[in-house]
C-alpha cells in the first residue's frame, strides 16, 4: 500500500512521544490529537491517521495511556485517551532522551552551518 508522503517524515518512534506530549495537556480523542499535532507543529507535521490509531492502541497495551468512552462536545460517544502515571514517567524519560539526541545532532551540525555562513 502506498501512503501519502507527509510533509516531514516522522522519525522512528517519535509519534509515540508526540502523542504522549499532546496528552499532557489533558485527555483527548483520536481526531483531536491529530488536529492538535498538526496545529502545534505549524502544519509542518502531518500525522497520518493510518498510523495514529495503531500507535494509540500500542500505547494503551503498554499501559502508558488509558482509554474511556466520553461524550464529545457535540454529544457523540468518543474514545478519549489520557496519560497514566506510567505514561507520564515514560514521557519524562523519552523527553530527556530526545533532548540529548537533538543537542548532539545540533553540536554535530552547527559547525557546518557556521562554515556555510562564512
Amino acid at each position, binding site marked *: 500500500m502506498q501512503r501519502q508522503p507527509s510533509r516531514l517524515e516522522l522519525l522512528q518512534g517519535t509519534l509515540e512521544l508526540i502523542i504522549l506530549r499532546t496528552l499532557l495537556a489533558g485527555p483527548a480523542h483520536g481526531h483531536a490529537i491529530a488536529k492538535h499535532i498538526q496545529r502545534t507543529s505549524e502544519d509542518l507535521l502531518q500525522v497520518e491517521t493510518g498510523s495514529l490509531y495503531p500507535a494509540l492502541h500500542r500505547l494503551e497495551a503498554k499501559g502508558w495511556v488509558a482509554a474511556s468512552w466520553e461524550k464529545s462536545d457535540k454529544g*457523540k460517544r468518543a474514545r478519549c485517551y489520557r496519560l497514566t502515571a506510567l505514561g507520564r514517567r515514560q514521557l519524562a524519560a523519552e523527553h530527556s532522551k530526545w533532548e540529548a539526541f537533538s543537542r548532539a545532532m545540533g553540536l554535530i551540525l552547527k559547525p557546518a552551518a557556521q562554515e556555510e555562513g562564512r
Partner: protein
Amino acid sequence: MRPFLRKLGWLIRRRDKEAELSEELQFHLDEEADERRAEGLTDDEARRAARRALGNLTLVREDTRAAWGWTILEQLGQDVRYALRTMAANRLFTVLIVLSLGLGIGANTAIYSFVDAILLRSLPVTDPESLVVLNWHAKGERVPVMRSMSGSTWGDSSAGTTAGVFPFPVFELLRTKETVFSSVFAHFRYWQTRSVNVTIGGEADLAGGWHVSGGYFGGLGVRPAAGRLIGDSDDKPGAPAVAVVSYAFSQRRFGGPAGAAGASILIDNLPFTVVGVTPPGFFGADPAANPDVYLPLHALEYLGAGKQFGFDPSAYGAEHYYWIQIMGRLRPGVTRAQAQAALAPVFHQWVAGTATNDRERANLPALVVTDGAGGLESLRRRYSEPLYVLLALVGLILALACANVANLLLARASARRREMAVRLSIGAGRSRIVRQLLTESVLLALLGGAVGVLVALWGMRFLTLLLANGRPDFTLHAVMNWRVLGVAAALSVATGVLFGLAPALQATRVDLGSALKAARTDRFRPMIRLHRVRPAHLLVAFQIAVAMIIVVAAGLFVRTLSNLQSIELGFDRHNVLLFQVDASKAGRTDPEVVSFYRDLRDRLRDVPGVRDVSLSEDSLINAGTGLPLTLDGERLQVGDHILNVGPEFFRTMQIPVLAGRDFRDADRRGSPAVAVVNEAFAKAVFGRRNPLGRHIVLWEGDKPARDMTIVGVCGNARYGSLTREFAPVVYMPYDQGYPRPGQMVFALRTQGDPLAYVGAVREIVRRTDPRVPVAEVRTQVADINRTINQEITFARLCSAFAVLALVIACVGLYGAVSYNVARRTGEIGIRMALGAQRGGVVRMVLREVLALAAVGLAAGLAVALASSRFVASFLYGLTPNDPVALALAAAILMAAVLAAGYAPARRASRIDPVTALRAE
C-alpha cells in the same frame, strides 16, 4: 505482567473490541467530515475527503488489531480449526496416525515404567544414596568354608559364587567399624517364618514374615505411620515379643494403622504385641519381598522353641553357618570404594581364621560392598534381562509407528502439493503455510500422545496382571513414568514435525506454474530419482523388516511355550485343585496335626464331584526335600529327593504304579514303615533287580529314624522343576514318624472345573478348624504355569506385539501402494487403453509390493539371525535360529503383505481408461 493481562482481557472480549474500533474510526471520519463541511465542501465531498485523509481503512484496522498483540494467537486458532477440519475430512488418515503413535508411545511408556520400578527406583527411605549392601564373592561353585546356609547364592562355575548372607559374628564385627558406617543393620527372611500364621481377634490368615535387627528402621531412616518401629531394646534375648506390620497389612487386617498399633495378636499361635506400622510405600530393603510382618531378629528363639527344625540359638555363635543379610549406611564423606578398601581386609582376616583345613582355605569368600540405594538385587536379577528384551521390542514398535507416521505424512504432502501451490499463488505467505502445516502435525502428535497415555495406563494394568500371574505375593506396582511418556511423545512429535515439515517446506518452494498445471498427475518427483525408489519405498521396506524381527521373536517365544506345555509330566495336571494348610502353626501339636489332616481329607472326599483326595508336603512341581537315606548301610548316591505324601497319592495324581501298591489309609503311625520309589530310583539303585521288599533307612542326624520297606514302584513324575530330568525320588507316608508333618498341600481330583469347588473347600476347612487358614488355592495347571510365568508372559506379549507390528506395517504398505496407484492413474489408464488386461495390472502392482516385501524380509531375516542369540536363554527346546519359527514368520508376513497390497492393486485394475485420460 499487567500488559499481558490487559491483552488477555482484550482477547476474551474481542468482539466488543472490534465494535469499539469501528465506532472509534467512524467517529474520526465524522469529525473530519464535519471539519471539511465547515470549510465549504458538500456533504458527499466532505465524506470522501475524510476517507482519503484516513487512508486504507482495512489496513488501519489490521495495524490496530496487531497492536492488541494477539494476531499470532488468532491465526493459531484459525490453523487449529483448519487442521481439525482437515483431520475430520481424512478420517482414516487421522485414525491411522493417531493409533500408530498412541500404541507406540503407550507400549514404551508401560514397559519402561516397569523397568523404572524394578531396575532403577531407589528405596523410599532417607538418603538412599549412602546405603550399601554387603555381599561376598568367591571363585567357583563350591565355597567349603560355608558349611551350611539359609538364603540364596547366585552365579555359576565360570562367574563364581556371590551371596548376601553372612555368619552372625561378621555382623557383630562390622558393627564395631564406626569410622566407616554410621549404622550397620541386619535383615533376612528365615525359612520357617517366611510365612507366618497371624491370628487377629480369632481370625487366622497367613502373612509374609521378615526379621530385622534393632538398628534396621533407624538405619534406614524410616518414620512410623503409627506407633513406633522396632528398636535396639526390642532385639534382645528375653525382650517382650513385639512386631511391626506394614501399612497395607494394617489396612487389610486392622482397618487402618491406628487400629494396629498396640494390638495383641498371635503369630504361629504365640502372643505378640504390634507396636507400630511402617509408612505407606515402604516395602523393606528387598523390593521383591514386601513383607507383612517385621519381627526382631531375636524373636527367632521364641518362635522356634520346641519346634521340629526349630531355630537353635547356637546359630548366633556359629562361624560356618551363613544366614544374616547385612546393610549399612556410610558415614558422610566415606565413599563406597573407601568402605570396600577398609572392610575387605577385616572380613578376610576373620574368614581366614574360621577356615580349618586347606580345602576351606583354598576358596575363601571376599567381601564386596555394593550400592544399596535400590535395596537388594533380587528383583533386578530376575527381571532385568527379560525387561531389556521387552524394551528392545517396544522400541522397535515405536520405530515402526514413527515410520508409519512419516510414510503417511509424506504421501499426504505429495497429495497436497496442488493445494499448496494454489494457496501460494493467491498470496499466502510461505511462513504462514509452514506454520499451518506444523500446527497440523503437532495436533496429530498431541492426539497420538493422549491415546498413548490411555494405552500406557491400560498396558500397565495388563502387565501387572501378566507378571503377577498366580503369584499371590506380587506387590510390584509400577507408576506411570511421565519422563518416558514425555520422551516417547517428544520423539513422535519430532517425527511428525520432521516429516510434516520437510515436505511442506519443499511444497512451498514449488514452481507454481508447473505445480498447477501438473494437476493430479504429480509429474515432478521429489528428491530421490533413483529408478522410482522414493523415501516412501524405503520406509515400507524398513517397516517390513522391523515387523519381521518382531514376528520372528513372537514365533520363538510361542514355540518355546508350546514346547514347555507339551513336556511329559508323568501325572495328569487337569482337573486338580491344590490348596495349602499348616495345622502346626495354628497351635496344634503333633498327634493333633495328623488327626486334623486325616479328618480334613475324609471330609473333602465326601464332597460330591470330588473323585480322589490326597496330600503332600509340597506340590510336585515345587517339591524339594532332601534328607539322608541309606540302603544296606550305604549312603545312597542318587540324591536325597524325598516327598512326604498322603494315602492314594498316586491314584489322585494319576501317576501309574508299575509294581506293588499305592499308599493306603492303613499306612500310618504305628504300622510298618513303607516307601514307594519311582522308576528312575529303581533303575539307578537296583538296576534289573526287584526293589520290592528292600529296605531303605532315613536318618535324623546320626541316628536312624525310619526303616522303610519298599512296597511299590511308580512311574516317573516331574519333581521340583518342569524342565529338569526325571530325578530318583522316594515317596513316603507323611505320618510315619520323622520328619513330623508341617505344612501340607491338598490335591483334589474333581469332576469338571476344579475352581468350582473352592467355596466348598474353604467352608470345610473353616468348619474343621477356624484357626487354620487356607492359602494358595490354585489349580494344578496354574501351579505349573507359575513356574513358566516368564515364558507365558513373553509368548503372550510378543504375540500381541507381532499383531501390532503386522497391522502397522500393513497400514504403511497399504497407504504407500494406494498412493502410488493414485499417482499412476494416468499411466495405468494409458496402459489399459492400449490393451493391458486387468490381471496384468494387478500383477504389475503386486510385483512392486512383493519386491518391497522381499527387500524388507531379507533385511529383517538378517537382523533376526544375527540377534536371536540374545534371547537364547529364554528359549526351550529349540535353537535361536529355529527354522520353523523363521519360515512361519516369513510366510505370515508375506500373506499380510499380499493382503495389504491386493486392495489397491484391485482398485488399479478397475481404473476406467476414459476417466483417467480425461483427467490428464
